[in-house]
Structures are given as C-alpha cells and as structure tokens.
C-alpha cells in the first residue's frame, strides 16, 4: 500500500508542541523565518500540561539571597556534576527573563504578599525558586505559549506524526510523516528541523508519562545518525500514585512536599532523616524541630530532608518498602493532612486534591496519600551544542526533554519547565539563524521519500501474527523488571536479550483495519522508537559501573570519581548496530568549578 503525499515547505520545522516546541516556534517565527509546527496530539494537549510544581528561576522574590550562581550550583550538584556546565550556566542565567517574558505574554502566576511572582521550595533548590500557579503550572505555560503561537499565526499541523527525518549525506532536508486522522502521508521540506518531542517514559509500565512519550525524537535523531548522550539516566520520580492499580504511576507533585508534606513509613517515622547524603549534610536539617522551623520560614534553619533530590528520595522509598516498612500497597505515606489546613491544601494543591478524590476515593486534607516511584523523565537525549542546541547533524536541533546535557545524572524538579523556555528559545534562534544562512529550501531525494512512505505502510501488508500492544506490554515488563530503579549486571544483560527478541517480534506485528485514525497502526510505528530508546538506555546502564543520580547499580553502589569524568555517547554504527563511546566531559572553567563545588551558597 502506498498513497500520494502532500508537500509543505518551511525554513524551520518544529516537531512537538509542548513547552519547548512552542517556545522554539514562537522564537523562529518572531525572527522572521517561515515556521511550521507539527504535533501528534491536538494543540495544547502536550505532556507539558501535566507539569505541576513550577518553573525554577532565581528571581529572588521570596528569598533575596538567591541568584543565578546558586541556581547553577544547585543544578550541578543535583546532576552529580555530569551536567554540561555551559548549559547549566545559560539555564540559570536566562531562566528569570524567560519567566518574566511568559508573564508579559499573559501567564498569571501566584503572587507574593507584595505583589510579585511567588516562588515555592522544591527538592535540591537552596532557596524558594519555583514560579508557579497552584499545582497546574504546566497548563498555564502551555496555554500562554499556545496563545502566543496563535497570535504569531504559526502554521500548526495537529495530529500529525513524523516517522523519519530526511537528509542528504551531511545535512537535514526535511521530514516524512502521516496525518493521524486520514492516515495519509505528508512530506516536509525544511532548512532546519527542531526536535521537541519529549521523553521515553512509555518504555516502562509504571510511568507518569502520556502515550506520546514514545521517544520519537530520540529515535528520529538516532536513525538520522545523530549522537545521544547520558541515556542511562532515567529519573524515577519518588512520588507517583500506587493505588488503585489502574492509576499506578500518575504523578503526585513534589509541590506537596514543597508545601510542607512529609514522608512516613508504616511505623510513622519520617524516614528521610535516616540517610542524608554527605553532599547535602550542610544544607539539610537532621531533626524534626529544625525542619519545622525551616518550613515556618526561619532562614537560619536547614532544609527539610523530604526535599532532597529526587534520585535520593526515590531510593529511600525503595529501601523502606524492601525492608518491610512500606504502606499496604507497596509505597510509603505522604502526609500533608496533619501539616496544613484543609483550605490551604485545596488552594495550593487543587489538582492533587481532585485527583485523589476522583481516582482513589481519598481526601488528602484528612488522610495521607500512598506514593511510590514512577518513571518520569529521561535526563539523556540528543547531544546538542550548548549555545545553539544544534545536534551533531547540521540543520538538526533539539530542545527540552529530548535534548541531553543540562540535567546530568539527575534533574532537579522545576528545572524542566525553565529548560523548555530557555533552550526552546535558543533552539528557535539557532534553527532560524542556520536557516537564514541558506538561500533555498533544500531539495529532498524523491527516492528516499518513496522508500520511507512505503515502509510506513508496510505493516498493513503483513500476515496477521503479532499484536503491537502485546509486544509493547512485554517490553514494558522487561524494562520495569530489569532496567528499573535498582539495576544489576545480569538483569541488564537479560533486558538486552529480551529487547533483541522483541525487535524480531516487532517486525512481525500486523495491523487490523485501514489507515484512518488507527491506534493499532500508530502503535506499530511507535513501538520501533520505544525499542531504540530501551536499547540505548540499557546499553548505557550496563556500561556505567557505578551509582550516580538516576542510575543506581546494586553491584556498584558507590559513585566513583573517575566515572564522573565522562558521558556515554550512543550512535548508529555502520552496520545499523548501536555503538557506545565514552566521551570526556567538557572542561569547566575554574571559577565555575569552584561555584559548583562550593559548600556554602555563593553570594
């Protein structure tokens, strides 16, 4: 089966309409180049809407001691010093302007008593730093950017999936995809392409991620020959819902802890006091009295241990459950009911209140929540230039979760939304100036287009054999069991074997029905992306023989100094096989090195 295709031409084509994609498209359009936007869902539905807690920016509205240097230091420490230092610096320096800009475009943030943008505490951030709107900050961000996109009259191709990038020997020339509704192919010719496709969470069974998170951008870049980095670092958010089973994995915002919620085991102990990492001892209260004083605003007190970084909190929860101190359904208790008034909880955490009430039949103003880790965010991604966000292929750019580097081994909560804005804008700029350097829209290779289109519809011609949903589910099972939060060599090797046989099965998955709005067919195509991401994640995890940030090895429980000096880089080899290379970290200037390692916060 093959269908005639329509062709569109843009200077800059942005793939993905979450925070990063929208921000990139707005920037490119404002710089005067012809910009197109493609998204798998309807406009305004991207995964960014699920972001809850806020966006981190050193505005210093709540604590005047805050500045970009402290934010940079916190980000580097949170990422266990594996971050691309230049990205972390740019991020910390530019985030405040990006937040103010969003306000100028109509975002309505919660306010301080003196009428400024309010900021809340979050894990790993020394000072209250997250600009927020209750617990629906992502929705505010996406709606504001969506309105801006409409105002700038950017052409949006909704419910359109990109299947492959087009390129010549040395540069990107466009992309091929299909309309979800009609199933018909669509071809884009473009001078530059920005990937803003989000993450890979659907590799796992228990995840906070939506159906769209099938690693499309990671796979598109990989197949086009670009480098991926840091793919072993998957963030398991410590607090996902654990009960009832059908909602397992849905996110419970870190904002609950930011607003004073505490973690307890089944003995009623605040277990987070039990193991405070050395890196954070100077900043963290070791007793409840001091923690309570900090929460009440005492600036001489140290922070609550519940707001240690996500990787650590998740590991502590796993330990409590494993040692028999978990909640009835295999999590721990998150209690805000005994800490804050019902009115306060409903005002600051309305979505959480609603979510538990509707889905779990639990009133969080009266009883504790049951929570446990859930696959949430991939720190790794397309390797990009810190200044322009260009990937290792000319004309290809990436921003947001699909790009790697900023977060190192572990992302701080709130650094994602600011990442989307800071690097979405930079990718838009980078792509636009790259496009301006070219005279004409590049020619695409008709033979290449025909081959890709044919391949896209090939599953319709297969005899009925495997079901794409079953193969996906089997992949999730093996990833959850073998490449989850606690990893060990033989299980990782088992996962690689499983992935190899799942790849064979994926070649046999067939499609029922025609190509019009057919989720079964979409799943066949998405599955290939998931398999690429799963393989990259597992290979990188096998190679890193230490524990660092989101990557924990039971067989190598410590962080090893030498291991912290390189990134894992993955790319496609000559025979189509995945190859891994260790690349030394870019060298950090001395003054930034001193900042990042400063025991006390820089002034």
């Amino acid at each position, binding site marked *: 089966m093959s269908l005639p295709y329509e062709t569109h031409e843009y200077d800059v084509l942005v793939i993905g309409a979450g925070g990063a994609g929208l921000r990139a498209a707005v920037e490119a359009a404002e710089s005067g180049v012809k910009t197109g936007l493609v998204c798998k869902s309807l406009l305004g539905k991207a*995964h960014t809407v699920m972001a809850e807690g806020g966006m981190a920016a050193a505005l210093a509205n709540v604590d005047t001691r805050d500045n970009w240097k402290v934010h940079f230091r916190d980000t580097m420490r949170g990422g266990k010093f594996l971050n691309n230092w230049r990205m972390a610096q740019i991020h910390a320096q530019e985030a405040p302007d990006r937040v103010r800009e969003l*306000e100028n475009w109509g975002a309505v943030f919660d306010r301080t008593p003196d*009428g400024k943008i309010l900021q809340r505490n979050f894990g790993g951030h020394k000072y209250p730093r997250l600009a927020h709107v209750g617990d629906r900050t992502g929705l505010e961000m996406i709606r504001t950017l969506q*309105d801006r996109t409409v105002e700038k009259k950017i052409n949006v191709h909704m419910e359109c999936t990109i299947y492959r990038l087009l390129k010549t020997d040395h540069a990107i020339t466009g992309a091929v995809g299909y309309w979800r509704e009609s199933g018909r192919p669509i071809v884009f010719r473009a001078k530059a392409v920005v990937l803003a496709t989000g993450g890979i969470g659907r590799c796992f069974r228990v995840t906070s991620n939506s159906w769209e998170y099938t690693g499309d951008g990671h796979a598109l870049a990989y197949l086009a020959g670009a480098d991926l980095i840091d793919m072993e670092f998957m963030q398991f958010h410590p607090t996902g819902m654990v009960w*009832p089973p059908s*909602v397992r994995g849905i996110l419970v915002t870190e904002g609950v802890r930011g607003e004073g919620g505490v973690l307890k085991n089944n003995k009623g102990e605040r277990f987070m006091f039990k193991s405070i990492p050395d890196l954070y001892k100077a900043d963290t209260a070791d007793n409840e009295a001091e923690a309570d004083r900090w929460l009440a605003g005492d600036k001489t007190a140290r922070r609550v241990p519940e707001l240690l970084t996500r990787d650590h909190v998740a590991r502590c929860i796993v330990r409590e459950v494993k040692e028999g101190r978990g909640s009835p359904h295999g999590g721990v208790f998150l209690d805000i009911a005994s800490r804050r008034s019902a009115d306060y909880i409903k005002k600051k955490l309305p979505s959480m209140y609603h979510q538990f009430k*509707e889905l779990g039949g639990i009133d969080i103003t009266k009883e504790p929540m049951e929570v446990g880790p859930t696959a949430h965010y991939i720190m790794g991604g397309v390797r990009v230039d810190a200044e322009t966000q260009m990937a290792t292929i000319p004309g290809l750019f990436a921003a947001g979760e699909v790009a790697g580097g900023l977060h190192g081994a572990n992302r701080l909560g709130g650094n994602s939304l600011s990442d989307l804005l800071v690097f979405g804008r930079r990718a838009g700029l980078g792509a636009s100036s790259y496009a301006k350097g070219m005279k004409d829209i590049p020619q695409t290779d008709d033979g290449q287009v025909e081959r890709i289109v044919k391949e896209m519809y090939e599953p319709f011609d297969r005899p009925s054999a495997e079901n794409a949903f079953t193969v996906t589910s089997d992949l999730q099972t093996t990833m959850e069991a073998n490449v989850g939060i606690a990893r060990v060599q033989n299980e990782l090797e088992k996962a690689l074997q499983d992935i190899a046989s799942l790849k064979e099965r994926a070649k046999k998955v067939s499609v029922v029905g025609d190509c019009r*709005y057919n*989720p079964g*067919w979409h799943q066949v195509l998405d599955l290939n992306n998931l398999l690429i991401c799963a393989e990259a994640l597992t290979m990188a995890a096998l190679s890193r023989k230490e524990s660092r940030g989101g990557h924990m090895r039971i067989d190598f429980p410590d962080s090893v100094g030498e291991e912290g000096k390189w990134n894992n880089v993955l790319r496609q080899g000559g025979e189509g096989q995945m190859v891994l290379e260790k690349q030394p970290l870019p060298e950090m200037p001395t003054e930034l090195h001193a900042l990042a390692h400063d025991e006390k916060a820089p002034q």
Partner: protein
Amino acid sequence: MSTQKVTLRVYRGDAESGELQDYTVEVSEGMVVLDAVHQIQATQAPDLACRWNCKAGKCGSCSAEINGKPRLMCMTRMVDAIKTAEGGPILVKPMKTFPHIKDLVTDVSQNYRNNKKITPFRPAPKGPDGEWKIFQYEIDRAQEFRKCIECYLCQNVCHVLRDHHEFSFAGPRYMVRAAGLEMHPADQGDRIDQLKEELGIGYCNITKCCTEVCPEGIHITDNAIIPLKERVVDEHYDPITALFRKVFGKKAPPNPAP
C-alpha cells in the same frame, strides 16, 4: 483483587455510518472508563479510535458521552459508570455536537477557529522597577478561568451549539477565555464589541448546562458569561455610555487601573 466482567457498548463507525458494538471487559479495582477502552484496543479492536493523553484529568483529550452524560473517560470510574448504566451495558459515545470522524473521535477544529477570533493579551506598561505589582486577590478570578483544560464538554452540551447549530455563538469555552483576558489586571485589550458581534454572547440564555459539566468546576455562567454580558450591556445599551461613544468615538472610558 476481585474482577468483574461488564459490557461496554461503544460507538464504532465513521462520518458515513456507524453502530454500537458490545465488548466484554474485565473490571479491576479503581479502573476508569478509559482503561476499559484501552483494554478493548489491546485485546479485541486495535483500530478502535479514541483521543487521550494524560489519563489524569489535566489535558482534556478523552471527552465522551458515557451513559448519555458528557464526561472525561479518564476521570470516570467504572464502578460509577456501572451504577449509572442501571444494570444495562455501559454506553460510550463520541461528543454529539462536533462532526464525527471515527469511533470516539470528533472534529473539534471549529473550537480552534473560534479561539483565533479573540483579541490576544495586550499587556499594560510595566512599573518603574520593570515589574507589575499584582496582588493575589486581583487574579483569583482570572486564575479560575485559566484552569480550563479545553475538553470542550461545555461546548458539547451548550444547547445553542448542540441543538440549534448556531455557530455564530463561539460557545462557553471562548466566553471563559475572553473573561480570563478581560479580568486580567494587566490587560489593556478591549473585547466587548467582539463579544457582542463576533463571539455572539447574546445567544447564551444562561441555562448553565456548561457549568454543570465542567470537570474543573469553573463557574462558567455566573463568573464568566454573566459579568461579560453586563459589560456588553453597559457599553452598548447604557444611554450615557452610548452618548459618550457617539461624541468621542468607539471606546468608553476604561475601568480604573488596578
């Protein structure tokens, strides 16, 4: 964990033709209707079309009519759907107001076209320190409107759109959007003429059907539409304002600055 088998009666078909089809699903604890639809996709009908994204009531993609009631599938528990089905199969149909595409998916592009008619945010100049001083009490109302997840359930039940197909009315969602902008303390846009002429606010006769189905609990009629109607009336039907407009041109004196 106990499981129970129930029948889901789902609309299957496209713009030309369609019919209700029965599927048996196994219900586990805490399951929602969207889980049941996914179970059907995975095991019985992989080509069953439905929209969904977040499965947590935040994106507004999975709107449908469950046992005749407009709901988000991800926020409707099977135990409740079994109850409202009163012993019969659970009926799941696409939203009726919008042109049908396939199975549970409808063409909601009219909403995106309506959205484009609204004058965007027009920011006031900043204060001397480069910031706006805005207090929480000034934005409580605008924040209520900005909770909207664009599920279009309000558009789906609005009888002006559903029964009378009067698409000169932009619908409740766009009254809420306009209200969110009009009540933003730093906005200087004027959407009053637009509300009357292009967005057709006069068509709404405040039956509050939209408010009843809003999954975010936005008081659409009382807090958005009625105050906007009052502003339209003040501007267009108040004799003094009308005289002012005649003498000095289009725009009446602005509300006092916050």
